[in-house]
């Protein structure tokens, strides 16, 4: 809105706020219903003299008559009636904005935007998001799932409230809190001979093809830990999406390696059999990361509380 839009010597500050104040429009729209000045004053908790001054000032700035006096009543002119209709829209828009802000403050509306890596995004958070949205139907959640490799760069650029991701590789300028840890699970199709073994040594494992997401940095570290314990793989097959890993293992091609959260259902229904490898338990720790300069919106804070309450940091075997 520029000064040029308001001919007639209006000061720029007034133009920024509109030619007429919202309070003045409120008085004008009250008059459309034929109320007396006293009735308008009672309704808006304003002195009659204040109403007169407001209307006079409004008329000076508008440049035309808004009301005429008819006995004890103030009557809107034709121009005043048009202003009253437009003023009604303004008041309603501000009422709606106030209602939105109040809901926003209570965390009952607004949008929660967060980034997450594939395992929490696909297997841990969806049910939690669903439960939160059932509790707060006017809140929107935008959950973007990204490979860990590009996640922090996207976080920096994208105005997200927070991220849920592996602790490893967390940029030092972000603050974080631990959320949960997930066990690395070896699994196989039930018909694979190694699946029938009660305990599998690293030596046994070396003769098998391992299928997993070995390009992600945290998976590379997990694999390095295995190698430090003496493991040498015959062959590694790298597939990025966990569902791709599962489908390949289901073909009987080798042993799958994923986080427990992503394979829990298939282990429970017998689609896959866990392969118990004799090694120190391998785990990855996942955290909530935030920009310490950003303050969370109430809906984002409420959602984080909901996540914390829904996920236990206790180790899930």
């Amino acid at each position, binding site marked *: 809105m520029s000064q040029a839009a308001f001919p007639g010597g209006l000061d720029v500050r007034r133009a920024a*706020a*509109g030619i007429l104040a919202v309070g003045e429009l409120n008085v004008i729209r009250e008059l459309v219903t034929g109320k007396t000045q006293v009735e308008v004053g009672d309704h808006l908790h304003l002195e009659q003299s204040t109403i007169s001054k407001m209307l006079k000032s409004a008329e000076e700035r508008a440049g035309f008559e808004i009301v005429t006096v008819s006995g004890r009543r103030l009557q809107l002119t034709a*121009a005043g009636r*048009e*202003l009253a*209709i437009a003023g009604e*829209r303004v008041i309603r828009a501000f009422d709606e904005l106030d209602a*939105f*802000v109040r809901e926003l403050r209570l965390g009952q509306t607004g949008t929660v935007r967060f980034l997450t890596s594939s395992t929490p995004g696909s297997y841990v958070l969806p049910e939690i998001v669903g439960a939160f949205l059932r509790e707060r139907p006017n809140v929107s959640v935008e959950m973007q799932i990204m490979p860990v490799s590009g996640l922090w760069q996207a976080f920096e650029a994208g105005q997200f409230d927070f991220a849920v991701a592996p602790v490893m590789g967390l940029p030092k300028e972000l603050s974080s809190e631990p959320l949960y840890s997930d066990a690395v699970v070896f699994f196989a199709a039930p018909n694979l001979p190694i699946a029938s073994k009660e305990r599998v040594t690293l030596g046994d494992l070396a003769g098998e093809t391992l299928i997993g997401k070995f390009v992600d940095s945290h998976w590379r570290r997990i694999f390095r830990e295995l190698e430090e314990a003496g493991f040498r793989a015959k062959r590694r097959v790298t597939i990025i999406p966990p569902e791709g890993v599962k489908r390949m293992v289901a073909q009987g091609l080798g042993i799958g390696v994923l986080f427990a959260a992503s394979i829990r259902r298939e282990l429970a229904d017998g689609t896959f059999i866990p392969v118990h490898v004799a090694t120190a338990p391998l785990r990855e720790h996942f955290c909530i990361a935030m920009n310490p300069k950003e303050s969370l919106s109430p809906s984002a804070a409420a959602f984080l509380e909901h996540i914390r309450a829904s996920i236990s940091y206790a180790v899930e075997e």
Partner: protein
Amino acid sequence: MLLSPSDLQILVRLEQGMTQSQIGNDLGLEQPAVSKAIRAAERRLGMTLAHVDGRRLKLTNTGREVARAAAGALIQVKAVDDLIVSLRAGRMKHTRIVASSTPATYLLPRIIAQFLGRHADAQIDVEVVSMPRLWGEFASGAYDIALTPRLPFSGRVRVEPVYVDPVLFFSAPAHRLATQPRIAFDDLREEQLVGKFSEAYWGRFHDDLRERECRFARSIDLSSAEAVKRIVASGVGIGVLFESAVKAELERGDLVSLRIGELAYEQTYFLVRSESEPTPQAERLCTFLREELSRMRTT
């Protein structure tokens, strides 16, 4: 009211990436007044709207949400300002209609002329706006009525279908196909099709003809209906427009309508008004438009 129009102006400008200094210049405020206004608004709202990042004041995610929600209120404030400017200019009794080109050119003029004949003191402005801009113009609050094909209508508006305009193929009376009662697609392969194909509706129409294997040797794309009629009347090709655009020429015999296979297309026009109380003149005009368009449709 938790936020004043001034607060909203500042928030919207911060969301646009403006610096405090730019906002101050734009709104005629001292630079410190910008951050003071934000801090005062934060205290009233109980939420952080902006934080200092280096030397810049940047909106938080909450601030961005409020800024986006503020846009609707600011549009209404601007509509009041526009109204005041318009009232000052003596256009108090004007009813403003915004319409797309075909209804504005071929449907409204006759109806408005009749209305003005009955209401001598009425003043009506009709503005033709291209389809991509039409809804934004109406939503700005600067118009009382819109007459338009279907758009992504939103907000507090009343929308009613008022007129169905069939698509018509036509040619010059001397054209070789003018006397055929029904034209087969094969008869068209050597013909040129003349229309306004750069407009979205006609572009889709053109694609649909192709999908139906209704192929012409060439298409001539013109930007105005008058140009389409004139070129077809001169004996070049087969024209396609809405019926309302060629009705007068068909009645005069300058052009003849053609029936091509089973092809049948149409466009529905909607009368759109704000849900808010209209001025008495806008109300009368709406009723008149509805009645007249309905009468035109049935005749």
